[in-house]
């Protein structure tokens, strides 16, 4: 196994947050919403596809009423399993429901500077640096630009991000902020250049796209970008982002149904655009602080919606990408730790194939390199639990237990020697004695994470792009600067 790529493995019983009958009810109520009230589809191509397939489309209001059977047929057509390829084929993976993966999330606008500790506007270098760190971390499997660089032409920021990611990270790339069809076209062109053509990209999709639906009940312009990705054979991740109490009802179940309806509506459009193409369910709900009206990513209610959406994706038999690991904390601190741990773990316990969010603070708006290392460490701990354990002759050494007998210990036994490397080991977690800890500067996990991040940036060299390919990619980026519509 490559030291820079270690998938998580599910080896324990999956947790289900809803009874089966409740999951069935979520599905039926979602179908009812789509049939009776319909969903507003801003994309002209989306409406055309729905209409041709028998939906009732109102060209004035853009509301499309979609028959339930069409939705169910479309869900059945989705490609299974979904492959996520990478610039380096050693980092390709397949979403088989038996393994779990972690991705960074977007899209922050500020970065906590690794040297000064001060918060400042994000730059392209932050994309490059965070991509390089992800490239080096064995349990970060995909890269989505953590921040939007403010030092490149605004309308073409996604292609600049993609180039920086390709230059610094050999793992699968997910674009989290591709809103326009033209951006998608140029990103697909870049991906094709890397793998050697569009046909090859279809076999090895090295790019995927997070496509946000809009709550309540709108499929926005992002649908056009998603259609491009679907037609290129690259999986869009169809994201519901209900804000509980504001753009969704004030209850967990209400937000679950609303979000689910939006996701399966978009899946229907995409399966009409490209039948049998790969796609993933995705969810990143938020909850309202009922006192202030502010929106927080990781209140327990939002985490419950996440878990329920994982269960729905499992019900449909498609992979799910959960936006989690959020926190309202402004610094990599205790609050960030517990909010992130709860949200990520309940998603994985429910069987989430992928989660995103490591490295971001304050509701996914601020990048902290220290937090990226800490979140990676937390995922290694979670994965160590999620893998479960066998009960067999090797794992229960009856002979050794009897040999050690009463009051002895197992530290000098061959069985211990043979198995100790399976044990989880910390990288940034400090487990030393008080004396040692004090003597070496009383460093916290955040301090260790900072040291580690600096060390990675000093030493880690990702596999380079060839000079010809780099030239070709740069040419596409320049072309995109002219070709992507902007005011």
């Amino acid at each position, binding site marked *: 196994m490559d030291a820079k790529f270690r998938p998580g493995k599910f080896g324990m019983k999956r947790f289900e947050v809803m009874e089966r009958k409740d999951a069935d009810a979520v599905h039926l109520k979602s179908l009812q919403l789509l049939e009776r009230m319909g969903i507003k589809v801003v994309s002209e191509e989306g409406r055309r596809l729905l209409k041709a397939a028998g939906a009732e489309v109102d060209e004035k209001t853009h509301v499309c009423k979609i028959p339930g059977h069409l939705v169910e047929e479309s869900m059945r057509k989705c490609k299974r399993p979904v492959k996520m390829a990478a610039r380096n084929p050693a980092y390709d993976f397949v979403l088989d429901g038996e393994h779990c993966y972690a991705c960074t999330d977007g899209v922050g606008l500020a970065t906590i500077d690794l040297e000064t500790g001060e918060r400042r506007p994000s730059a392209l270098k932050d994309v490059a640096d965070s991509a390089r760190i992800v490239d080096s971390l064995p349990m970060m499997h995909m890269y989505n630009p953590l921040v939007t660089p403010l030092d490149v032409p605004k309308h073409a920021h996604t292609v600049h991000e993609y180039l920086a990611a390709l230059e610094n990270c050999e793992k699968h790339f997910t674009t989290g902020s591709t809103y326009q069809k033209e951006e998608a076209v140029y990103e697909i062109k870049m991906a094709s250049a890397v793998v050697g053509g569009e046909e090859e990209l279809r076999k090895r999709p090295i790019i995927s796209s997070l496509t946000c639906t809009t709550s309540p009940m709108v499929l926005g312009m992002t649908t056009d970008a998603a259609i491009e990705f679907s037609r290129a054979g690259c999986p869009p991740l169809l994201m519901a982002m209900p804000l509980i109490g504001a753009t969704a009802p004030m209850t967990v179940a209400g937000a679950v149904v609303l979000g689910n309806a939006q996701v399966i509506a978009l899946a229907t459009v995409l399966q009409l655009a490209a039948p049998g193409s790969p796609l993933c369910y995705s969810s990143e709900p938020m909850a309202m602080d009922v006192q202030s009206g502010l929106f927080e990513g990781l209140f327990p209610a939002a985490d419950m919606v996440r878990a329920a959406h994982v269960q729905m994706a499992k019900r449909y038999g498609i992979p799910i990408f959960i936006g989690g690991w959020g926190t309202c904390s402004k610094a990599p601190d205790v609050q960030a730790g517990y909010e992130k741990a709860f949200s990520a773990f309940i998603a994985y316990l429910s069987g989430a194939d992928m989660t995103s969010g490591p490295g971001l603070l304050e509701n996914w708006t601020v990048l902290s390199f220290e937090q990226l290392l800490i979140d990676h460490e937390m995922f290694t701990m979670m994965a160590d639990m999620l893998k479960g354990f066998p009960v067999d002759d090797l794992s229960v050494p009856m002979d050794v237990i009897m040999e050690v007998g009463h009051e002895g*210990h197992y*530290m000098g036994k061959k069985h211990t020697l043979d198995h100790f490397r399976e044990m989880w080991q910390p990288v940034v977690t400090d487990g030393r004695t008080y*004396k040692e800890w004090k003597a070496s500067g009383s460093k916290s996990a955040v301090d260790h994470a900072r040291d580690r991040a600096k060390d990675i940036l000093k030493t880690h060299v990702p596999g380079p792009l060839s000079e010809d390919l780099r030239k070709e990619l740069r040419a596409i980026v320049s072309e995109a600067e002219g070709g992507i519509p902007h005011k």
Partner: protein
Amino acid sequence: MTSDKDAILAELENGVKGLQQEIAVEAARKALAAGMNPVEAIENGLAKGIREVGEKFAKKEMFVVELIYAAEIMSSAIQVLEPEMKRLSSQRNVVGRMVLGTVAGDIHDIGKNLVRIMLEASGFEVRDLGKDAPTEGFVSAAKEMGADVLGASSLMTTTVDVQKEVVDALRSAGIKAPLMVGGAAVTEEWAKEIGAHYSSDANNATVMAKQLIGKGG
């Protein structure tokens, strides 16, 4: 002959540091068959191996499980050599003599065992009283072996007081050798209070023991 001897010493050393019990034990038998002095087999073979493991453990290049396993290998090889050592009444050169034990009422001895391994690897002769060791045992063992230094370990807050009993018993018996204390429940302040020396871990204990007997840097 020299090259045979070197080969056997290398096997003794590599058996320990490479965590290969059969190789070390077989090499001990070969050493006896070749007429090698068992002390030489230990000093220039087995002990070299365990010292390297100890150094790597200190640098976090090897794991505690490996250190303990290497020590088990070393002791099983020494068992092979022991009858011949007795016959020749030969002894290892010792850096210092130490009495070590987990105090009465406490059965936690894994940390104490690590201290023993590291000290033996550094050339100390260690009389290990084991766990739940009676206070008077520290006194009598120190007298018997002429201990240069003692070590008392305690993991529980309920048994740290026994460390004070050990110091008091030693002093009232006229034994002046310094006492090192350690274990999860022990602090630097407590050690000072009872007139002992605090050591936080096995590596630190080795350095401190050498300093206390005037042989450390």
